[in-house]
């Protein structure tokens, strides 16, 4: 393998590790605000207990996101200097606005949100919670604007091989941006819903029946049950948008080798790129034409149109199916859970056992989806403007390989520790339930922030 491939794997490893944590914090910030607002209006301390339990998960996830994000900002320069040299005029301002409008906001108010409950008036604490949630969402806004621009560039012109901005509105609101942003925000929402449901189910199985746990479980299952059909619809719209702007990506996702009408929907196959055909194919006749063109005779573009200029088929085909499959499982589990909660205000044991591993289903679907869309951009770094292999730096392959190996070890260790701590926190909370006083706080003091005036 050469430096380009190692650099790609390294970037993929870093960004895959990174996205796990923002996909939690973006939505968890809003859920914490919801808990806080419920507490403010009901004065039910169970809401505040749920808040304190989940604010710990937020703090830990936030720290993981920050440190892996710092890595990304350096890697643009260390591994991909060509990227900023060619499209820095576009990417630069978008990244700068992310730092200015999002990073500082969340980082500064995080301190108050985490440790300031007894130091600032309750209203300021609620405001800090809001600002942190708002900051994480702004961060998603800017980074997805940039990512979408790389997929479907607009609003610029090339002068001497360098992109220059001519219309910032068109750059930010490029053709795929609204779809991608909504798809990602919903993905984050679902990741948090299922994580909450999963951790709560773990506490439930450990014998915990506390009200604060039930509040988190209801929040996770009900919100998940509402969000998943919306996500399926949004994903479909995103797919149609991709068909319009990046048809080669759709052709690879569907492993459709020939352009034409009456294209079947391939459910299972092993795409073979050298033979340009699928092995072991199971498919629904006319399915792809129906889904993509809403007509059995609809002409669907195939890979034969994009000879030598389409992404690798196998990872796209399977990445897409893993995402959709996980989404359908989420639909099933959340709706079952919602029915049980609605009828009996509890879930059966077997369902709780299913919900625990489903706690990580959001991560799986998010990663599979990102792999589909990012590998689907290849061989381009910025579609039609800059190829990935043109942007790589001159660092020796051995250096990149060594650092990659250490990153992978580090990430594996951190991920194991992170999951270990989540389980530890859940079991500890389950032992304590709602009866134990919160650390160093009397039951009564909990309802009253010291500085409430």
């Amino acid at each position, binding site marked *: 393998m050469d430096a380009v491939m190692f650099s790609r794997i390294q970037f993929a490893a870093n960004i895959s590790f990174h996205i796990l944590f923002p996909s939690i914090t973006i939505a968890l910030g809003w859920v914490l605000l919801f808990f806080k607002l419920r507490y403010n209006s009901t004065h039910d301390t169970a809401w505040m207990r749920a808040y304190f339990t989940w604010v710990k998960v937020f703090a830990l996830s936030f720290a993981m996101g920050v440190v892996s994000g710092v890595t990304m900002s350096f890697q643009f320069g260390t591994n991909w200097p060509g990227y900023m040299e060619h499209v820095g005029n576009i990417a630069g301002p978008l990244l700068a606005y992310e730092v*200015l409008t999002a990073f500082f906001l969340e980082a500064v108010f995080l301190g108050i949100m985490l440790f300031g409950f007894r130091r600032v008036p309750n209203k300021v604490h609620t405001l800090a919670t809001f600002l942190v949630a708002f900051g994480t969402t702004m961060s998603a806004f800017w980074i997805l604007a940039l990512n979408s621009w790389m997929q479907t560039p607009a609003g610029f012109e090339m002068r001497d091989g360098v992109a220059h901005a001519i219309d910032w509105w068109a750059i930010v609101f490029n053709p795929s941006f609204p779809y991608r942003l909504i798809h990602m925000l919903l993905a984050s929402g679902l990741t948090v819903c299922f994580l909450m449901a999963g951790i709560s189910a773990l506490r439930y199985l450990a014998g915990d029946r506390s009200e604060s746990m039930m509040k988190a479980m209801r929040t996770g299952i009900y919100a998940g049950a509402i969000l998943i059909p919306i996500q399926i619809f949004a994903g479909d719209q995103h797919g149609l948008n991709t068909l319009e702007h990046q048809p080669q990506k759709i052709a690879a996702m569907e492993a459709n080798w020939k352009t034409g009408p009456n294209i079947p929907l391939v459910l299972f196959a092993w795409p073979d790129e050298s033979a340009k055909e699928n092995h072991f194919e199971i498919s629904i006749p006319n399915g792809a034409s129906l889904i993509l063109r809403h007509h059995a005779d609809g002409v669907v573009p195939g890979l034969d149109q994009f000879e030598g200029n389409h992404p690798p088929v196998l990872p796209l085909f399977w990445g897409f199916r893993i995402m959709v499959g996980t989404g359908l499982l989420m639909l099933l589990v959340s709706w079952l859970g919602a029915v049980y909660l609605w009828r009996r205000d509890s879930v059966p044991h077997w369902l709780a056992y299913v919900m625990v591993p489903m706690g990580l289903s959001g991560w799986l679907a998010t990663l599979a989806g990102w792999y589909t869309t990012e590998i689907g951009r290849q061989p381009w770094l910025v579609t039609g403007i800059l190829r990935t292999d043109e942007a790589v*730096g001159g660092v020796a392959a051995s250096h990149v390989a060594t650092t990659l190996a250490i990153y992978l070890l580090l990430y594996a260790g951190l991920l194991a520790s992170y999951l270990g*701590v989540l389980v530890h926190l859940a079991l500890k909370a389950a032992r304590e339930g709602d009866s134990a006083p919160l650390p160093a706080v009397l039951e009564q003091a909990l309802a009253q922030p010291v500085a409430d005036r």
Partner: protein
Amino acid sequence: MTIDWPTILPLIAATLMGVAILIYVILDGFDLGIGILFAVAGDHEQDRMISAIGPFWDANETWLVLAVGLLLVAFPIAHGTILTALYIPVFILLVGLILRGVAFDFRAKVPAGHKQRWNRLFFLGSLTASLAQGYMLGVYVLGLRTGFPAFVFGALVAMCLAAAYVAMGAAWLIYKTEGELQKKAVLWLRSALVFTVFGMVAVSIATPLASPRIFDRWFLFPELLYLSPLPILSAILFLLLWRKTFQLPRPDGRQELAPFLILSAIFALGFAGLAWSFYPYVVPDRVTIWQAASATESLALILAGTAVVLPIILFYSFYAYRVFGGKAGDLTYD
């Protein structure tokens, strides 16, 4: 020099980047320093030290993101050149920052038996991050040169910057703690100062020797006259601080922030000296800030946003420091 936007905007961007780096070095300097001091602190003291930085560290590190971000977005060519040349030290810095950033949170949340492990990682991460930053500074001062002499010089600067961070950390602890820990912090500050002085003198001597251009900037008349206040003022501040370490802590609890402020002033003076040495280059002796700058319209957009947002950021950062002002207590989530 003509006065038009393509001339002025890169200059403003470079100034802002310099300010961001300076603020980063001062702010993250104290929490990195406290991380290094973990090695010599007891268990209870460690908890108190974390309380002294817990609410701030994240925002402190954001200044690094802003500085690298400005380098990335305002001077994209320099960003690539500098960071590819410093590939390995940047990697070590990142691993250090990753370890310490998460160790912070993990140490408070893992089962009691695992806490010690994360304390060690917090120390190791802080130390390697500080050393890597110092090494990068040293190599940058030498114009990104490679080879054994550059390595030795980089290693020297690495140790001195780490010592300077320890001094900052100790000074912050003098402000944020009381009792035994505060007394210890005074001793830590005094020991660290020796190395800090050594490092600043080494960099000051090596910088002009490394580049004839920089030599001329400093040692020609009349520049010599304008610039002489920089080293003289630094020396006076050092002596003042040295004397303070024998007077603190005072029974009336006053002047506890003074060491931190004096050290910050010394950092600012040293930084001004470096900035003067390298201006107008962003990659020493190779690429000027105008050659490396992004397109004028992109810079204008970045700087317009910065002009609006930076005062707001400063305002709410001060607010956060005020909320958590006074002596550090126990840090809890409620």
